[in-house]
């Protein structure tokens, strides 16, 4: 390095040449949940360019599906969006059921709605809680995750697992609703309402929080559409698209609920859309509880699709054979292709599946909502400050398991 006094002699040297600083953020960075890498070009703290590089959590989900039977995809599906695994389970069930051209009994459809919406609530609580925490608000984070834990307690009671339930089945669910489900929900849902309200009290009049969220990470409606964004990200930008409303599946057309949308497409709108969706999900669950048949079958009545009862498997040859065939060869689907899509935690979760008529998927393609939402992330952040990456990236709720597959 030149001595300082030498430089000072030269007038021209005072006009320091500046060039953008290149900074790697992630893939191993506390704010880059789901291991994403961002290569930033910075002018001071301003983001000049942003190169998003996902793929660090690629496990070969789609290829793995081609190895097992149709039913063996459920554990993989759990690990797509692991924050709301039940929605993935239901999505996969519906895709294969579409291929099989069967419909599960109504009781099962309501049950799937209830468990799925609970998952959605947990998903939104996690996202909003984490967003707040990353801006230094640790209390709301714990406040919200407390509810997620209650939901997980309930899901554990229903499914036996807190997170990766693998509870969906083709043609039904692994088990019927427990007797205590209704009481548990009646106790839980008012608490959900209360906690959302409390969290809002903590956050929505907090000046620091508002400044970090409002007007930051703006995604216009046009861009949201252009990038194929769905879910809370698109709705935050004013795109009123919700698969449950626009292409109702299962029994969603029987419920009275609103699709909240934002106006500015900033972090704040996405944040508030999620809170409002929690309230709407609670409404849906309440109506579903009301309408769900109290008894009746949950699974379709066909041992060639649904595993027969273990008692029967051990004592009758028909069930033994059905079990054997389902385990060894997998349930057989007709030859063909289907695209089936549902409203996942982050938007339209689609499964495009191709069957060659055997017991194993020929090809499975997932449309992960995160992938499209993440693509729009660059658009949101260009020109913003480096610190804005944190709440913006948080509000996309990118889930590596789903995005990278």
């Amino acid at each position: 390095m030149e001595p300082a006094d030498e430089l000072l002699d030269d007038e021209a040297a005072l006009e320091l040449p500046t060039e953008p600083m290149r900074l790697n953020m992630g893939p191993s960075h506390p704010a880059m949940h789901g291991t994403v890498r961002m290569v930033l070009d910075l002018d001071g703290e301003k983001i000049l360019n942003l190169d998003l590089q996902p793929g660090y959590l690629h496990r070969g989900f789609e290829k793995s599906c081609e190895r097992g039977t149709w039913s063996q995809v459920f554990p993989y599906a759990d690990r797509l969006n692991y924050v709301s695994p039940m929605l993935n389970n239901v999505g996969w069930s519906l895709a294969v059921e579409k291929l099989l051209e069967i419909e599960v009994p109504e009781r099962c459809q309501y049950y799937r709605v209830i468990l799925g919406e609970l998952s959605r609530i947990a998903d939104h609580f996690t996202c909003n809680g984490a967003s707040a925490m990353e801006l230094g608000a640790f209390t709301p984070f714990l406040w919200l995750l407390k509810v997620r834990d209650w939901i997980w307690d309930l899901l554990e009671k229903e499914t036996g697992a807190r997170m990766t339930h693998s509870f969906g089945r083709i043609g039904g669910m692994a088990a019927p609703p427990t007797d205590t489900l209704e009481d548990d929900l009646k106790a839980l849902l008012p608490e959900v309402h209360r906690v959302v309200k409390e969290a809002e009290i903590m956050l929505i009049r907090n000046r620091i929080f508002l400044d970090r969220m409002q007007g930051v990470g703006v995604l216009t409606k046009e861009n949201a559409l252009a990038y194929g964004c769905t879910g809370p990200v698109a709705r935050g930008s004013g795109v009123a698209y919700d698969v449950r409303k626009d292409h109702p599946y299962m029994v969603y057309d029987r419920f009275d609920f609103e699709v909240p949308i934002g106006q500015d497409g900033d972090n704040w709108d996405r944040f508030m859309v999620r809170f409002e969706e929690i309230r709407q999900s609670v409404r849906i669950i309440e109506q579903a509880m009301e309408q769900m048949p109290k008894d009746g079958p949950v699974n379709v009545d066909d041992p060639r699709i649904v595993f027969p009862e273990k008692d029967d498997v051990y004592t009758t040859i028909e069930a033994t054979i059905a079990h054997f065939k389902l385990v060894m060869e997998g349930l057989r689907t007709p030859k063909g292709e289907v695209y089936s899509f549902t409203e996942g935690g982050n938007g339209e979760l689609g499964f495009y599946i191709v069957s060659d008529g055997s017991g194993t998927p020929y090809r499975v393609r997932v449309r992960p909502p995160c992938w499209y939402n993440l693509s729009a992330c660059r658009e949101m952040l260009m020109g913003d400050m480096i610190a804005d990456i944190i709440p913006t990236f948080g509000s996309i709720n990118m889930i590596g398991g789903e995005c990278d597959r």
Partner: protein
Amino acid sequence: MPKFKLDGREISFEAGETVIQAAWRAGIEIPHYCWHPGLSIAANCRMCLVHVTSGRQMAMPQLEFDESKGEYVPSTKPKLQPACQLAAAEDMEVSSTNEEVKAAQSSVQEFLLLNHPVDCPICDQAGECKLQDYYYEHQGTLKRKLTEPVHKPKGVRFGPTIVYDAERCIMCTRCIRVSDEVAKDHVLDMRERGNRNEIVLAPGRELDHKYTLMTEHVCPVGALTSSDFRFKARVWFLKSGTGVCTGCATGCNTHVDYDPRYGKVYRLRPRDNAEVNQFWMCDDGMMTYTRHDQDRLEAPTRGRGAERAPIGDAEAITSAAELLSNVEASKLGIVLSGQHTTEDNLALAKLATALGAGHVYLAALGGWDGDDILRSDDNNPNRAGALAASGSEALKSTAELVADVQTGTVQGVLALGWATTERLEELTPLVSLESVVSLTSHVGALPAVAALTIPVADIFELEGSFVNRQGIAQSFTPVLDAPLGVEPAWKAIAAIGKAMGHDLGFDSVAALREALSNQVEAAQ
């Protein structure tokens, strides 16, 4: 050819053919248990019921419940006919998938499973069982009968090769018919009726003819199991390759079922070939796979008796070349083998020509009891191929080799294969020679008297062909990997030739085959 329509698809048939047979030839399977293309028609399983929708409909009277009257009233339903017994007729229209047929298939299947034991987990047939396949395809309902199933004898020894389980049996009578019609031995029959039905042996007899394993092969369920395969492997772990039986000159086509995890062959199954073996194989042929693992030679050895010691692969080739070079070409005896492929034999015959060897012999087994069904008297799979490879009408036997050695006409031997008619004692004169080289997959009398043995690939491990007694050349491809360092004989022969300064002019099985066809054409 006349045609009829099955489920809307036109199928041509020959006069006298049944619907199921014509469909089977067209590659369409109408579900069936008792029908077998190679056996007579029994029409007792009722699984192949079809609905003839053209012409005057056959109707069957039945009672139907009339809800408005609250009582049963007479009505009719279409009368279905067994496709295995129904002769195809011009412009006939047959449905094997309409609602009536589906209902019948489901009912028949349910009936067959009525008293079936819960044996899948311990049954060798599981995974290739027609009851399982048809349950999934055509039934798909759970048990309605709540009473105890009928119990019958289990694990009945029918003979040295077959064990019978009457509870699993669906009484299709295929095993009876295969004994009657293929083996020409009426050793099995059926007794009692209804759910007491069971297959029994003729009094004082055992199931011991030469085609007993075919009864197991045709059994569509797990009622007959082979003592050899019983509880040895799970069929869904097995993969299947194609082969040709090494048992005799008939050359029955086989499926070679092996477990890729262990590289082990578990059984052979006959592979349909109308020209050669139709659908069948004999017991001895089915069991030839057991030779593969037994008494294999896996490393080259040098020396005789107590001095015999393993040597390296490369050393074996140079050592063989050295031993053979020590012998005057006119006094060198080359021994082809009726157990080896035509390609192996051709390679050796080419080496004999290149060296100018004076004497060519053929080593072969001495024959077994043939019959006029499948078994040839000659239990060498490729005598004809070896002869074709040598280019001569007849070859001298190994007995003549021994005589030639004793008279001193032959002073060095290069022999292929382990199989000879002569036993070890009869071959002892060869021990007096210094230069006896044996190329062999297994140990045997001929390798035992050799001064140098070189292991070569066995039938399951190489690509090649056999010429059977009808003069049909049947090729096969490798099913398993040969032990490390072990090559097919033709490669070892080429290497020995090269070490002795002769390029034999082939580097692949394809090149050998081309050479053979040129040789045969030139001879004509």
